[in-house]
């Protein structure tokens, strides 16, 4: 009897497993574009951005060979995104220009996702007015994540331009967005809080701004989004400086320097350590910043 129950349950479980799975059909032949894109995506996941750049370049060439407009758009976008993350602004702009040309040849005159990247490139070059024009274009995208990111970046740029009404508009837009309302989407919530922190800073509510920035920093760390966390640490440093708490600002700069070093951006790391050295008020902090700077310079000379 026991044997029968065991066998019956095994058969039942097997049938259930078969029923729950969905059939995946094997494509007619291997697609090197898909494979290369997957490898590159994994490289981004594992934070191997140089490897990702190599693979996305390869994927872009394959997409050109396949004469597939969508693939060209996506691979060009991905390549430029990775180049931006590697702080290769000129390369990213060159990629965007090339991608637009290839799309134009194939009858596509605009791409909102490329507009978004173009805006970020211009922002990094300090051309805020031009940048916001491109980001506004991107905010009309039908892709939800592109639209949402555009609104966030528009808010970020509005703070740089001290356009408080647009900043408030962006906060409202993001709060009304479905993805932000999703309780599991902590990153989207953190984006809104970051903009709120910038808003508080703009209107002179420094304590609130600091508190919001600290909240965001914690979420970024939890989400392993270290680039965004670096940005929030710098925001905190800025707020501390406004509050005339240089020692705390130096502390934030030191932490930011370590994160930048971890992301292999030694130029930025050196700048943040120098800032920490500048604003450190105690001997211990000063020595600490100096040691960090010396270590960084040693590691640079070894490289």
């Amino acid at each position, binding site marked *: 009897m026991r044997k029968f129950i065991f066998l019956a349950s095994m058969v039942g479980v097997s049938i259930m497993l078969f029923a729950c799975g*969905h059939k995946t059909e094997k494509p007619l032949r291997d697609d090197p574009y898909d494979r290369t894109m997957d490898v590159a995506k994994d490289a981004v996941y594992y934070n191997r951005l140089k490897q990702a750049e190599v693979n996305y370049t390869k994927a872009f060439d394959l997409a050109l060979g396949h004469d597939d407009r969508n693939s060209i758009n*996506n*691979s060009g976008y991905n390549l430029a*995104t*990775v180049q*931006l993350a590697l702080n290769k602004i000129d390369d990213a702009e060159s990629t965007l220009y090339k991608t637009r040309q290839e799309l134009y040849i194939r009858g596509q005159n605009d791409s909102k*996702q490329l507009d*978004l990247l173009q805006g970020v490139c211009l922002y990094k070059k300090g051309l805020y007015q031009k940048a916001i024009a491109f980001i506004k274009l991107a905010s009309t995208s039908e892709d939800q994540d592109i639209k949402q990111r555009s609104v966030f970046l528009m808010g970020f740029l509005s703070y740089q331009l001290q356009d408080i009404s647009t900043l408030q508009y962006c906060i409202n837009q993001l709060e009304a967005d479905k993805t932000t309302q999703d309780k599991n989407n902590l990153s989207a919530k953190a984006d809104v809080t970051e903009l709120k922190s910038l808003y508080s800073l703009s209107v002179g509510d420094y304590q609130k701004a600091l508190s919001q920035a600290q909240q965001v920093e914690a979420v970024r760390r939890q989400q392993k989004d270290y680039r965004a966390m670096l940005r929030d640490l710098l925001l905190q440093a800025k707020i501390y400086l406004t509050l005339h708490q240089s020692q705390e600002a130096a502390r934030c700069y030191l932490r930011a320097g370590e994160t930048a070093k971890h992301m292999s951006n030694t130029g930025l790391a050196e700048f943040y350590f120098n800032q920490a050295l500048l604003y450190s008020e105690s001997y211990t902090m000063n020595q600490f910043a100096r040691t960090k700077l010396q270590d960084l310079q040693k590691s640079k000379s070894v490289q």
Partner: protein
Amino acid sequence: MIFKKQQDPDNRILFRMRYANEWTGAIVLLCVLAFVGAIIEAGILRDWVTPAAKLNIILPQSGVANLSVGDNVEVFGINAGTIKEINVNSDGGLSALATVRPQLRNFIRKDSQVTIKRQFAVAGASYVAITRGYSAPLNWNYAVVIAKTEPNPADQLSQMVAEIRKRIVPTMDSAQNIMSSLEIAIEGIQQGKGTIGRLINNDELIRRSEKMIQSLNDIINQLKPIEHNINHVIRHSDKIVSNFEKVSKDITNVSPQLNPISKNIAETTEQLPSMMIQLQSTVHDLQQLINQLKSLWILGGSSHPSSKTKRLPAREINP
């Protein structure tokens, strides 16, 4: 009446010719006709009727080489006419008007070469020599040719001498300079200046050379004991070489086995590419299997297929 008078025996007429005047007149006419025919046949009349062709010759700016009115014009060696006029043009140039026998007009064409020459190369009367032409004929209503002067051999000779002189004189000067420099150098050597001078006049260098040779001899003497050691090393080297020979013999013995090994390696490597494809296929299948397993709800997955877009999420873009 007359004939009747001749019947007189005293005044008897020797020949009695009836129509004698008419005959005389006919003979005279015949003679005149024969004369005219002969003239026509000889072409004298044609020469008279046909006027001589006029040829304008533009003379060279360098000079006319003593060409004067009345000088001959020759067409490929045949006397063809004479120079009738030599004119000075309004632009300062010179030209000559020559008459040419009309029969020779056909030989003078646009590519004919016109040269002013002298009878005996450097002396004698000047004449105009025209070569035979083969291109388009001239417009004989106003025929113009351009003449050049034949270079005078005497002038060429003097020019050549001048050129040779021009080249030889600097060479001679250089030779003189070289000689003077050589003289100074030899004087310097004699006075003991410079390395060669010191070598010749100073015994110090020779003494030093002698000392050096002596030192070399000493070094060689010192090296002699080392020679023994070197011999020892060479003997060792011989041993090593012999050992190496043995090793190479062993390798030679082993080498027949190398061929099957390399063949096996080749066969194995041949299969590698296909094995790689199989491996790739297996990995792909494995990935699919993992994806499918992940999608089972019993393992915590959902049956919704993952997003098919290959685009990175927009969150990857950071300001």
